[in-house]
């Protein structure tokens, strides 16, 4: 087959999309919440990390194949540091990285139908001076991306469940919440999304449950702190801070 056979190319792309979605089914969701004190990123890993520092004010939460997550991570880190070194840290933004670096690279990789696809879904976060300045971006494996309004981003393999989880989380995040409360909220949404059925909003008792234990998995969470006097904003949460 050659790529100048349009119908077969369309078939190949459709098959590729279906294949990637099928491969991603076992991956578990990641979350980012914009809050007055910063942006909280949350994931649940099983030996591999899911939440990463990218640059001074930028972080990534991703799900998918660990090797592909690593490729994306390294690509964005290199682009961010070259940009920051050539110009200034203030010039390194999620919008520019997605528009000019990661977005085109992911799309080109997805359309290279003779090479192995990148199986990864991402949430990028950039902390601003105020919550209104925060940027949350949801990036798909095919290079498409959208910026999330209202301070919540969820990365999940099922678009319908992801949308339902985002709407539920927005409502839950309306008031003031402590870090342990935010972690429990994210964990409750994580459990609902990983149950083998459509997303059902967790009840209050589940959200309030003090248990953070998940068999063979580890909770990962980090703040992108909003404090203006610090250059480095990324701070992973300790076990004590989670509970």
């Amino acid at each position, binding site marked *: 087959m050659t790529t100048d056979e349009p119908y077969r190319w369309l078939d190949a792309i459709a098959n590729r999309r279906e294949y990637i979605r099928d491969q991603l089914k076992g991956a578990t969701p990641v979350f980012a919440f914009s809050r007055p004190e910063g942006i909280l990123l949350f994931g649940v890993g099983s030996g591999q990390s899911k939440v990463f*520092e990218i640059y001074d004010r930028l972080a990534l939460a991703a799900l998918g194949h660990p090797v592909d997550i690593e490729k994306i*991570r390294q690509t964005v880190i290199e682009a961010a*540091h070259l940009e920051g070194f050539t110009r200034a840290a203030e010039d390194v933004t999620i919008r520019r990285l997605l528009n000019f670096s990661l977005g085109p690279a992911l799309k080109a990789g997805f359309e290279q139908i003779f090479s192995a696809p990148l199986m990864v879904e991402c949430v990028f976060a950039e902390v601003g001076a105020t919550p209104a300045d925060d940027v949350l971006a949801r990036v798909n494996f095919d290079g498409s991306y959208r910026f999330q309004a209202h301070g919540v981003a969820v990365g999940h393999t099922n678009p319908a469940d992801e949308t339902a989880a985002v709407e539920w989380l927005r409502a839950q995040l309306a008031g003031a919440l402590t870090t342990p409360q935010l972690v429990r909220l994210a964990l409750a949404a994580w459990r609902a999304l990983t149950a083998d059925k459509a997303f059902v909003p967790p009840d209050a008792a589940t959200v309030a449950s003090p248990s953070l234990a998940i068999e063979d998995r580890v909770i990962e969470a980090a703040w992108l702190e909003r404090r203006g006097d610090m250059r480095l904003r990324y701070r992973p949460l300790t076990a004590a801070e989670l509970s």
Partner: protein
Amino acid sequence: MNGDGDFLSLLPQTALTTARGDGKAVALEATTVFAFHYADGVIVAGDHRATAGNVVFSDRTEKILELDRHSLIAIAGSPAIAVEMARTLQTAFDFYRRSQLQPMSLQAKMRALSRLLHDNLPATLQGFGTVAPLFAGLDPATMRPSIYFYDPLGAQFEGVKHAGSGSGSGSIKSVLHFLEQWGSPTPEKMTLGEAVNLANRLLMTAAEFDTATGGVDPLRGDFATIKVLNGAGVRSITPAAQAAFWQEVKP
């Protein structure tokens, strides 16, 4: 996308370089920076003055620069090159930590600074780009802070108790040596407040004998640039905090 964690190697791949020695830079030399151990860690301090010959170029220069949460540099020598070195190290340390998911070792950080100084050899030999910095870093394994000083060719030496660089550092090193021998308390047993006050007094002393060292004037609220490094990382001591310490002892 090689991901080897070496930002210095990444720069030439993208036609970027850290070299700045084109022979046209204005030589700005003379300064005073120093570091010593106090009870809870290391204190690194410096004045704010940059000079070119007998001209005061600026009295608002920052010479104590945080490289990451566990290391900092005090620059002395040609500011254009020294600041660029600090920026390169800052990016290299951050890049390594983020790409490798672990902090760079203290030894590797010290070698990175040595390498930059060695690469600057042509400018040093031409006499306009000499840099002789101090470096303070925390060993991630022991969380113990150490002080190092460098010669302009890149050789590193540990300042076991203190180190100084710049035209005004001679008198400061003399006073620190005296206090380490006969002081009560010795600097390494001082509290943070005592150490901050000592740092400001040392700069006042250096300014008395060296015109290229900007002084400290507590009455006007002019204090040194002071950062501390201990197990909790790097922390700036703001002028307001220094003023409070100064008031406590009523010197």
